[in-house]
């Protein structure tokens, strides 16, 4: 009985530790890990395609968009990776069913490059058509995009919102097309592992 109590206490505290780790990634990361996490709010893709580098955590513009400096590109509801039909790089991606926090190790296989008609990233949103809220692009839960960048680094990414200001999509205000915030404003969070391992801890 005592042993059991001790064991469950130990397990319990281990769990709490783990949980607090994932909440404060940038604080408690082990020294060897080069994990950076970032939430990008309202990346404006409403007028042009937007190119983004996960390693630098910045938008890529101008002549650099023709290089392998960017990893992902937002074009309307399509998200491309820098490879195949989309770019000169060798960036690959796949979608993993998980919460962002629970995905602690990137898969080692099954990454895809972009090809005509079959992009590496798809299925991250649904279009509501005529069901309420009508004609909305809603992000699908549990679709975590795992990216293997051109220089072989791993990142995980969750698309949070397609609308400016990351609105609550269950409100009447959002359902009303007249008051719905502008679309093609991407809010997403990602964790980039700079040490080249598959670990997201």
């Amino acid at each position, binding site marked *: 009985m005592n042993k059991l109590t001790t064991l469950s206490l130990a397990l319990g505290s281990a769990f709490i530790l783990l949980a607090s780790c994932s909440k404060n990634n940038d604080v408690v990361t082990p020294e060897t890990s080069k994990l950076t996490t970032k939430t990008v709010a309202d990346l404006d893709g409403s007028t042009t395609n937007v190119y983004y580098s996960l390693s630098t955590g910045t938008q890529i513009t101008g002549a650099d968009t023709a290089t392998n400096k960017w990893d992902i590109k937002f074009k309307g509801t399509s998200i491309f990776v820098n490879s195949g039909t989309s770019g000169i790089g060798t960036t690959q991606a796949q979608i993993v*069913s*998980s*919460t*962002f926090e*629970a995905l602690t190790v990137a898969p080692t296989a099954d990454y895809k490059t972009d090809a005509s*008609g079959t992009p590496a990233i798809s299925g991250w*949103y*649904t279009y*509501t058509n005529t*069901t*309420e*809220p009508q004609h909305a692009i*809603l*992000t*699908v*839960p*549990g*679709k*975590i995009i795992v990216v293997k960048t051109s220089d072989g680094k791993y990142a995980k990414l*969750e698309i*949070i*919102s397609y609308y400016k200001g*990351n609105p*609550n*999509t*269950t409100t009447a205000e959002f359902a009303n097309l007249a008051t719905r915030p502008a679309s093609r404003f991407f*809010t997403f*969070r990602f964790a980039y592992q700079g040490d080249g391992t598959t670990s997201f801890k």
Partner: protein
Amino acid sequence: MRLKFILYILISHISLQITYAQQRDTLKKDTANARQLKEVVVTGTRTPKSLQQVPIPVTRITADEIKKKGLVRLNEVLSEQTGMTILDDPHGQGIQIQGFDPAYTMILIDGLPLIGRNTGILELSRITTNNIDRIEIVKGPTSSLYGSEAMAGVVNIITSDPVKGVSAGLSTRYGTNKTADISLNSAYKSDKFYISGFANRYSSGGYTLQPSSGLPTVSPFEGYTLNAKSSYKIDAKTTIKLSVRYYTNDQDSKYLVDNRYAGGTGTEKDFNIAPVITHRFNDKLLSTLQLYRSTYKTNSDVRYTDDQSVYDQTYFNQTFNRAELQNDYTLRDNLKLTAGAGGQYESVEATRYEKLQSFTSGYGYFQADWLPVKKLDIIAGGRYDVHSVYKSQFSPKLAASYALSPKFTLLSSLGKGYKAPDFRQLYLNFTNAEVGYSVFGYEEAAAGIARLQQQGQIESILIDPSTLQRLNAESSTAFNLGYRYKPNSKLYWTANLFRNNITNLIETAPIAIKTNGQSVFSYFNLNKVYTQGAETDLTYQLLKPLQVGGGFQYLEAYDQDVLDQIAAGKVFTKDPVTNLTKEIKRSDYGGLLGRSKYTYNIRVNYLDEKTGVNASIRAIYRGRYGYKDADGNGIVNRDDEYTKGYFLVNASLSKPFLKDALRIQLTSQNLLNYKDSQVILNLPGRLIYAGIIYNFNKTN
């Protein structure tokens, strides 16, 4: 010995007396009569059986109850029953029983199945209740007697037999949305012969829940039902009977397609003919030979209003033919055997099928009704169906009732039900012209894919059609446990617990991707679901003129695969405030779409003996139910994926004149004017009707 014969005679005699009483004194006496007489039901066992004794859940609704409530169509009647919900679906108003979709309830008229379903739904407003004696509803699988489709239950509409002499009647109801229901009937009956005719016209101007759109939610329609029945007693032992029913309905339609208006008319025709001969060979053996032919046809022509070019032209012709022989044999006083066999031929020809498709099937069924001791009634039976296209099915059933006292009966039953793959699931060949996806029935998949490949329309094949598993019937195993309590003539209380395990549910899944990015779908035996719950209903004569009642159902309906996925931590949602993914817990899962966890009803009826004035008011509550998936995980879990729960209040007031030959009635449905124009399209708001019923009967 002769018991069965006597019982049989008694039953037919009793039911005649009830009808006769109704004719003279429609409402006053029947309540008392019905309580005193042994109520008889036939649907649960295909033999006449006392309602108190029959070991499976059966509800019996008399014409009298229906008249008191001012109801005229089957959907109106069923929507007020405990444990039954009329679903809102663009393909029609169908019934949900024990959490099953409408496709799993068989609808019978005088024991014979109606055909003509639109994606599984048989439109219940097709059926008038003006010419009926009663409705019997059996809950739980009844495939052991009726075969495919009788998985959730059976609704049997029993038409009325005429009273002796010459009789005639007129019944009308008119009100909101120019909805009119007019019935005429006349009959002649002598000792050996009767003939009766019935005509009904049901029409409506339709309604819209979105007035600004200029488009109807329900378009105007005009339907007719004609029904004739005749019976002749050749001798004391042999009777022949013929019934013919014809139904036709025209409905306008109007749509907006890519900013162009399109409109047209759809016609629906339903024809049934059923000759039957019964012969009593001796005290012990009664044989019934029944022939039945039913046809169902629809035709629709929709054109663009601007240039009259065709938007959609479709037709659908279905036939159903059956010959069946049933023998009821009384082996001993306490052991009755029923055995039957039949053959069926069905066909369908439609726009969405390659060619005329047909099924042939044969079946045999057997039932033993045994009372080892007086208090215990055991029914064991089964049916074996052999089919030309899908695997043979065996549907056994075992049921028992035990009378703890003459007032209290316990009942329990265990049985299997099945639903065969329908024509659509086997033979559909359909490509959506606007969106561009294709759907092929199982039998058409290989040819359909090959054709599309030849046309260069296939980008990639996901599942090779030659490896497709043969489509099997959907099947269920069900358990029901309940009681009936009738301590005196004032109180009647029933309760039932149920559980249905359903496997091999047929669903669509993609088998190929087309070059236009759309999918090609076919049908698969995929899901495993279960439904379970409890139901109770109580009627109590509180004061002499005042009867109160109420019913309640608790229902759970879950997809087993989803539950497994949730247990594995593979189902997610988005927090509506932060839009971040989180894991779904078991308690978040709302179950299958369209199932309310809680439904209940409260009924009050007041009948003033002196004046004959009858007032009836019923409140029906349907608890919230999931109607969509908003967060993209394919299941119902978030509050915004549910409708609101709502009350419907229906009321009726009537007064008889001229010694009850004439009755004037005022009826309202949805008195509180509840509407949900976004989600619930079959609720037009408050409806007010006025009605007149006149009956005439001359015995000599």
